[in-house]
């Protein structure tokens, strides 16, 4: 197993794309978080804003880059033909997938931590200037606040789970474009459909089962009673999606010819 890990780490390390994608995930996450923080102001939205969730809005876009990274890790090998060499050298396909999952998780956790801290720091700098001050009942964003810490940790875990979901889907469909289409469809369609369908009960159900809508419940720090799903339960829903995708990927990887 350690050989498999070492091999996968070497691949990830030596492919030029990895670094750029991780950097892109960080830049886009912090960038969108900052733009959203700049777009809102106390005067336009009033009280009741969840400024922690607001300053972590960049995860919405960062997850797409994470998905590319994870999809490329395995579907990229199919498109370049590298998969034949990989499987010749490492005939134990489940160990291979496990090694890829471990490397993707480690990379995304590291980049995600930087991105989330950067986003919170951007929010901490921008939001008070936009009226979200103690005078209006908004404390300065700080990781010492328990719920903010949970939101930050949860967002990093969220990104890692999105990576695992993408890896599982990519292992199952073996094509980059298709895999990324499926992953981004799963992520982005649930919030949009929940918005478009009118009935509150169906809307709530969609938000409870959608990997993104449920998973991002972890970012909430206010109005916790009105969430469609409890924060950790929501992250568990995403984990279930990721586990199901990895399972499907593992079974198909095991059964099919490369």
């Amino acid at each position, binding site marked *: 197993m350690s050989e498999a890990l070492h091999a996968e780490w070497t691949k990830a390390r030596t492919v030029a794309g990895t670094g750029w994608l991780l950097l892109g995930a960080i830049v886009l996450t912090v960038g969108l978080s900052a733009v*959203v923080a700049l*777009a*809102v*102001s106390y005067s*336009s*939205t*009033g009280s*009741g*804003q*969840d400024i922690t*969730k*607001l300053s972590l*809005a960049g995860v*919405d*876009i960062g997850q*797409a*880059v994470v*998905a*590319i990274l994870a*999809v*490329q890790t395995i*579907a*990229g090998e199919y*498109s370049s033909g590298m998969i034949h060499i990989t499987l010749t050298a490492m005939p134990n396909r489940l160990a291979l997938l496990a090694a890829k999952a471990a490397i993707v998780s480690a990379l995304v956790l590291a980049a995600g931590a930087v991105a989330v801290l950067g986003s919170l720091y951007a929010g901490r700098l921008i939001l008070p200037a936009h009226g979200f001050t103690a005078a209006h009942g908004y404390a300065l964003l700080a990781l010492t606040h328990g719920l903010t810490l949970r939101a930050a940790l949860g967002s990093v875990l969220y990104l890692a789970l999105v990576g695992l979901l993408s890896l599982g889907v990519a292992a199952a469909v073996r*094509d*980059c*474009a*298709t*895999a*990324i*289409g499926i992953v*981004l*469809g799963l992520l*982005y*369609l649930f*919030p*949009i*459909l*929940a*918005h*478009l*369908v*009118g*009935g*509150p*009960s*169906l*809307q*709530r159900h969609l938000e409870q089962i959608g990997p993104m*809508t449920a998973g991002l419940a972890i970012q909430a720090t206010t*109005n916790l009673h*009105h969430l469609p799903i409890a924060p950790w339960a929501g992250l568990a829903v995403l984990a279930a999606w990721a586990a199901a995708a990895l399972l499907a990927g593992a079974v198909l990887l095991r059964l099919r010819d490369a």
Partner: protein
Amino acid sequence: MSVTSAPYRSEMPDGRDGFGELLHAEWTKFRTVRGWVITAVAAALLIVLFAYLGTFHHEDGGICVGANPASGTCQSFAHPTPPLGPGGEAVTDTYSFVHRTLAGDGSITVRVSSLSGRVQAGNGNAASATDMAGASGQVQPWAKAGLILTATTKPGSAYAAVMLTGAHGVRMQYDYTHDAAGPAVHTPRWLRLTRSGTTLTGYQSADGRTWTRVGSAHLASLPQIVQAGLFVTSPPTAPAEQALVPGSGGVATGATATFGWPDLQGGWSPGGWAAENVGANVDNAVLPTLSSVGSRRSGSGFTITGSGDIAPSVGGGETDKNALTGVFVGLIALIVLAVMSITGEYRRGLIHTTLTASPRRGRVLIAKAVVIAAVAFVAGAAAAAVSIPLGNHILRANGNYVYPAGTLTQLRVVLGTGALVALAAVLALALGTALRRGAGAVTAAILLVVLPYMLAFASALPAGASQWLMRITPDAAFAVQQTLPQYHQVAYLYTPSEGFYPLAPGIGLAVLAAYALVALLVAHRLLRTRDA
């Protein structure tokens, strides 16, 4: 003696390499990849499937009454059927009316001495009967008090009215959708409405002696005998953004105006004044109204309290947007398809054959764009043509009110949806050509087309920022799906999430077309300058 033999020349005529052949080749490539054809068909079917999913759940359909924004629930649901105006549009026609019968030509003149307002007590979340009776508050900007001449007192009748408004001065309005501004003045004011045949003219004056014309209306179908007199009405406050539950119509308000004694000229029938609360008994509770309305004689005139509106109806019913829920699902499938139609060639090495057979690379790109745009257009338009009647039928069957839309509007939505997905597919194809990587290109296209919509509606962005997203991102094209016009004389939350887009349909589509064109130009340049 030597025999010379001519080298072999094929008997076959030379192959042509025009654009037609190129198109044919690209179409053949598309047609013969089974997965692509299945994806295109699946995209259309998904749009229709989600039209069903997006509408059938309205089992508790109707207008949300007593909306609670915190839990997103409603106390109950009304089942309104708004009256239709002379132009066939859904209208609100609820006002307090003190009137007499006028046969033929005539005029009515009155002094409006004051106009005040009230707002429903409570916060609108759980309005009780006593709340609806009203409390203190400001006069609404579009509260109306003045003179009206109407064919009948049945809601939806043809009418013309000259009025004083809460904050928009004197107005001349007729047949619900027409509005002409007079001077921006306040009470006290003199108003006059005259009828001459089918022409109605409104005047206003500061002193009752010097009159200026506000506007006039030609109501072709006006009968000989009409009802005319004094009216007061006051529309609900525009729902606040944070407190908006889809379908909730704002907070009920009322207005009270004191009038002097009306001066009548012409063919007025003898007898007294009749008081009527027009539209109060009709089950058309699209707008919340106060319950305590009516009129009384006061001194040498009338004091009238009204609640409601005489205007086109814009909120509370359903539009085609619900039936087109699935466009996003189909869009993602078509984006993947468009990207693969070029990245697949790079992956398989087919691009070498393609560019050898047709060295003019720009034309290859254009041929691909034409084929993928045609496929996407057909899939999108066909799916929309099925989805809209299906979705609207399900909504109506479940007791929802669906706003009527003209045939031309429906056609625009159907063709516009086809154009929207076609342009998005071309954008995706261009991104695929430029990036040559399936994952990157699909992600870029989805982030451009789907993410702005998600950020605009499913995030904490304020309405202003959402409006800008719907102007400058490719999602501006969703304006083609707007079926209800926006009326400046009706205060409402005209946000994209309520189905109102900031750009006109054609302009919105042009924004997406500009994105597709720029991406295509960049892709063209890269395709020509790079080795395959």
